[in-house]
Structures are given as structure tokens and as C-alpha cells.
């Protein structure tokens, strides 16, 4: 070896930062720096235009008393608790089916991935066409069969269910693709060995597949959690947050303050709180899964 060991050690120390630099630089300049501005806004009464006075922690204190914020926060949390496991199971299930040797595999994959590329305004239109209380296909069919139509969107609980269904439909394909890549990377020899040992397919799934998917599972849970907390454009297009505020999730609440009510400072403060909530949740999951390393 030509290089001295010391030089090599220093190189090993610097190298990861060098690999990170391009990404870090772009992200830092275009997102982190503006986000820091956002932190500054959160201590002001900025209206998005001209007014900006420093008001200390007043925004944060007001948020504590903003029960609409906490209501929407709670609603979002429940939504996330429902939707994240369903997305996980749905994506893993379809990925398992679509990594088998079957005809038209690519077409099937494409069909399930397709909804992820439909813009949210169109997603809203589609699901209104299906679930619309009076104009929807489902209720039309239900009425044809002689039953009473179901208030899909005008009942708070049902409206939330509808949102969950639409979210699953539009997100599962995305995570399925990630699972497919991960499943395909599991060496076939593992399964062959297990098969020789007489393990059933269920045993193979729990003993081999799931443990080896640990990094991917962590990825998908964290990403879908962030997704769920950010859920907004789809809901706005589908229910508009209604009936009343029954499907108003936290990001919509933030938007309402930022733009309709022109309280940019207050909206920034709410975003910062959300940032920390997600940071802590992510950190906890990292701890629990040890970064998703396969032990």
C-alpha cells in the first residue's frame, strides 16, 4: 500500500463529507436557508407583505391556546395512525405479488403505480365522482339496488374514511415500487436454503423477508408518516376540509393562516412546531430501529 495509514484515516474521515457536499449544498442554499427565515418569521407578526415586527414568543404562546390547531393536529395524528399501517401493508402486499414470476408483471406494476402520478386536483375530482353524496357513482349504484344512499362526504366520519381510501389509492403504488426493489435484492439463495430446510412460505416470509426488509420498512414508515402529516392538497380537492372542519388537517390549518388570514408569522410558528414533532418522531424510530441496520 502506497499511502500511509494516517493519511488513509484522514481521507476516510473527510470522504463522507465530500460525498455529501453537493446534496447538502443545494439543499442548504435553497431550502435550509429559507427555512431559517421561516424560523425568524415565527417570532414576528409578518403578514407576508410589509408588516414585520418582532413579537417574541407570542405566536407560540397563542398556538398553545389555539384549540382549532390542536383539534386539526389530533385529527391528523389519527389519520396518520390509520393510514400508515394500511399503506405499509398494501404496498408490501402488492409488492410481494408483483415480484413473483407472472405474465404482464410490468403492466400490473404500472397500473398500481399510475394513481401516484395523477395530480391532486384530478384525484379530488375522481373521488368526488365516486363518493359524491348525490352526484357520485357509488350512491347511484346503491340507489339502483334500492338502498338508501350513504352520506359519504357530508358525514364527518365517512368523509375521513373517504380521505383514507383516496390516500391509499394514490400512495400505495409509490411505496410498492420501493418494496419491489428491496424484495428483488434479497438473494435467492436464502430462500433456497430455507426451502431445503422445509420452511413454509409463511415461515420464510417472517424469518427471511421481513428481517431483511428492516431498512426499507423504516424508510416507508417514516416517509408515509411525513406524507400523512403533510396530507393537504388531496383533501382540499376532495372534501375541502369539510363537512365543517371535520377533515381539516393540520397543514390546511397552517395554510389558512398563512394565506387567507395573512398571518404568515403565526403560520411559520405552527410549521416550526410541526418540524419538531416530525424530527422527534423520526429520531425515535431511528433509535428503535437502530437506523434500520440489519442486525
Amino acid at each position: 500500500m502506497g499511502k500511509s495509514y494516517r493519511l488513509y484515516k484522514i481521507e476516510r474521515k473527510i470522504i463522507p463529507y465530500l460525498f455529501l457536499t453537493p446534496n447538502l449544498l443545494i439543499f442548504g442554499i435553497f431550502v435550509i436557508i429559507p427555512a431559517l427565515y421561516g424560523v425568524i418569521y415565527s417570532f414576528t407578526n409578518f403578514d407576508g407583505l410589509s408588516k414585520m415586527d418582532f413579537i417574541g414568543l407570542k405566536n407560540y404562546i397563542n398556538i398553545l391556546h389555539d384549540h382549532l390547531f390542536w383539534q386539526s393536529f389530533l385529527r391528523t395524528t389519527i389519520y396518520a395512525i390509520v393510514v400508515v399501517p394500511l399503506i405499509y401493508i398494501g404496498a408490501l402486499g402488492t409488492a410481494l405479488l408483483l415480484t413473483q414470476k407472472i405474465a404482464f408483471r410490468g403492466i400490473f406494476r404500472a397500473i398500481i403505480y399510475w394513481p401516484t402520478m395523477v395530480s391532486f386536483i384530478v384525484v379530488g375530482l375522481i373521488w368526488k365522482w365516486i363518493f359524491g353524496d348525490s352526484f357520485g357513482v357509488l350512491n347511484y349504484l346503491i340507489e339502483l339496488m334500492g338502498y338508501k344512499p350513504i352520506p359519504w362526504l357530508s358525514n364527518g366520519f365517512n368523509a375521513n374514511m373517504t380521505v383514507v381510501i383516496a390516500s391509499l389509492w394514490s400512495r400505495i403504488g409509490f411505496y410498492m415500487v420501493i418494496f419491489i426493489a428491496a424484495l428483488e435484492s434479497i438473494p435467492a439463495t436464502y430462500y433456497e436454503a430455507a426451502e431445503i430446510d422445509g420452511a413454509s412460505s409463511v415461515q420464510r416470509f417472517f424469518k427471511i423477508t421481513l428481517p431483511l426488509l428492516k431498512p426499507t420498512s423504516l424508510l416507508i414508515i417514516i416517509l408515509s408518516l411525513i406524507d400523512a402529516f403533510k396530507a393537504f392538497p388531496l383533501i382540499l380537492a376532495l372534501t375541502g376540509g369539510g363537512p365543517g372542519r371535520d377533515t381539516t388537517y393540520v397543514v390546511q390549518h397552517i395554510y389558512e393562516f398563512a394565506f387567507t388570514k395573512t398571518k404568515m408569522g403565526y403560520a411559520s410558528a405552527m410549521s416550526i412546531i410541526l418540524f419538531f414533532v416530525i424530527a422527534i418522531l423520526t429520531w425515535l424510530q431511528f433509535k428503535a430501529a437502530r437506523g434500520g441496520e440489519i442486525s
Partner: protein
Amino acid sequence: MKYRKNLKKLLVYLLLIIISGLFLIPVLWIVLSSLKTPTDLYKWPPSLFPKEITFVNFETAFKKGNFGVYFYNTTVVTILSTIITLIINTMAGYALAKYKFYGSNLILIGFLSTLMIPLEIIMIPIFIVIRTLGLYNSLWGIIIPPAATPTGVFLIRQYLLGVPDELLEAARIDGASEWRLFWNIIVPIAKPVISVLAIFSFMWRWNDFLWPLIVISDPQKYTIQLAISNFIGEFNVDWPSLIAMSVISMIPVLIVFLIFQKQLVKGIVTSGLKE
């Protein structure tokens, strides 16, 4: 035994057809709706199929803007941005997966949590940064800034965690430089996940709305999504045109998916790796 296997196969197909039916019907409705006359679109009772197939929505939509230019802009932006994303995200993901260094987890968690701050809230400072760097009204302003996706970095990192360290150590002992290690060993191994990222990045950039909204003010530099969203007015949405253009704009994303998903198969490189 053979009988059971065939039965299983049949069940798998049946399940797949049901599932893909559920996923397909809504998109199918949109595709078929783009072929309906505007009156047919609002008809009651609802129907999946158009009464008569017409391309009038596409014609009117194309007349309402310079869609050739928008498609060209979007293509340029999407391809260049995706190339950048693939390179820098793979590098960053590799660094975070295969090196132990101070702050690595913090960087990743910081990256990911920042996704939670709605870009709309920080639109003004983003605009200021863009202007300061001379990227305002330049396509580069929507190519470079969104390229550093946290999701992509995380995606690559988690995949590369599965690559055994021994493999890298062996190459190092052979005297390979870290850079060569990355290009000659990591990139080939990561080909499936890079394909996934290519699929995603293409879709993100193709459908991006917010970055173009912030950066672009020159109609000659509009992207397809920016143009489509202009069908939304205060009181009215021009649904026929919006649906028609949305359907057209999905085609390239679908094609890219079909091409790249072929990479998602058991690779020769990966099998037998994790001994």
C-alpha cells in the same frame, strides 16, 4: 402438488386482477372523460364510457396555450434535474449508509424533518435566494434547487445498508480509491434503487408545480403543470381542458415507469452478495 401450484397461480392472478381493477377504474374514468364532450362530462346519471368519442377537449386545450413549448421546457427540466438528483442523492445516500461519521444521523433526520415545513410558507425567502443567485426566470432555477431531495437520499441510504461492509473493505485492500469504490462497486449494486429514484424523480419534476410557480414568470418558460393549473379560475375550473391536458401529461411518466421498472428484477450483481 402440481395441482396445488396451479391453483395458487390462479389465485394470484385473480387477486391481481381485482386489485388492479380497483386501482385502474378511477384513472380509467379520467382517461375516458377526456374523450367525452363537455356536456357529456357533467351528465347525470354518471357513466364510465363516453357517449361518443371526441378529441375536442384536446383541441381546445392545445389552443389555450403554447403547449409544445411547455412540453419542451418540462422535458428539459425533468431530464437534467433527474440526472443531478441521481448523482448527488446516490453520493449522499452512500455516505450516510457506509461511513460512520459525526452527525450522520442528525443530518439525515434534519433533511427529512425539513420536508415537513410547507414550501409555501417559505416561498418568499426561497424567491429571494433564487433572485440573488440570478436563477429567477431561468429553467436552471427549477432544475437545480429541487434536485437535492431528502427522500431520494433516504431511499438510497436504506438500500445500501444491505451491502456488506466486507465487500468494500476487500476492494480497499486491493487499493481502490474511495471514488472508484463508489463508481465501480456501489453504483452497479445500487442500480435497482437508482432506477426507483429515477422513476420517482422523473415524476416529481414532471409534476412539480410549486418550484415553477416561484421561479418562473415568463410564459415562454412555463412548464406543463404551471400551464394546466391556469385552467383554475376564481369561479370556474375549465375541467374539460384540465382533464385533457392532465391525461396527456401522464403519458411520459408512465412510459418512463415502464422502462425503468424492468430494472427491478433480481440482478446478477446482487444475488450472492450477502454471504
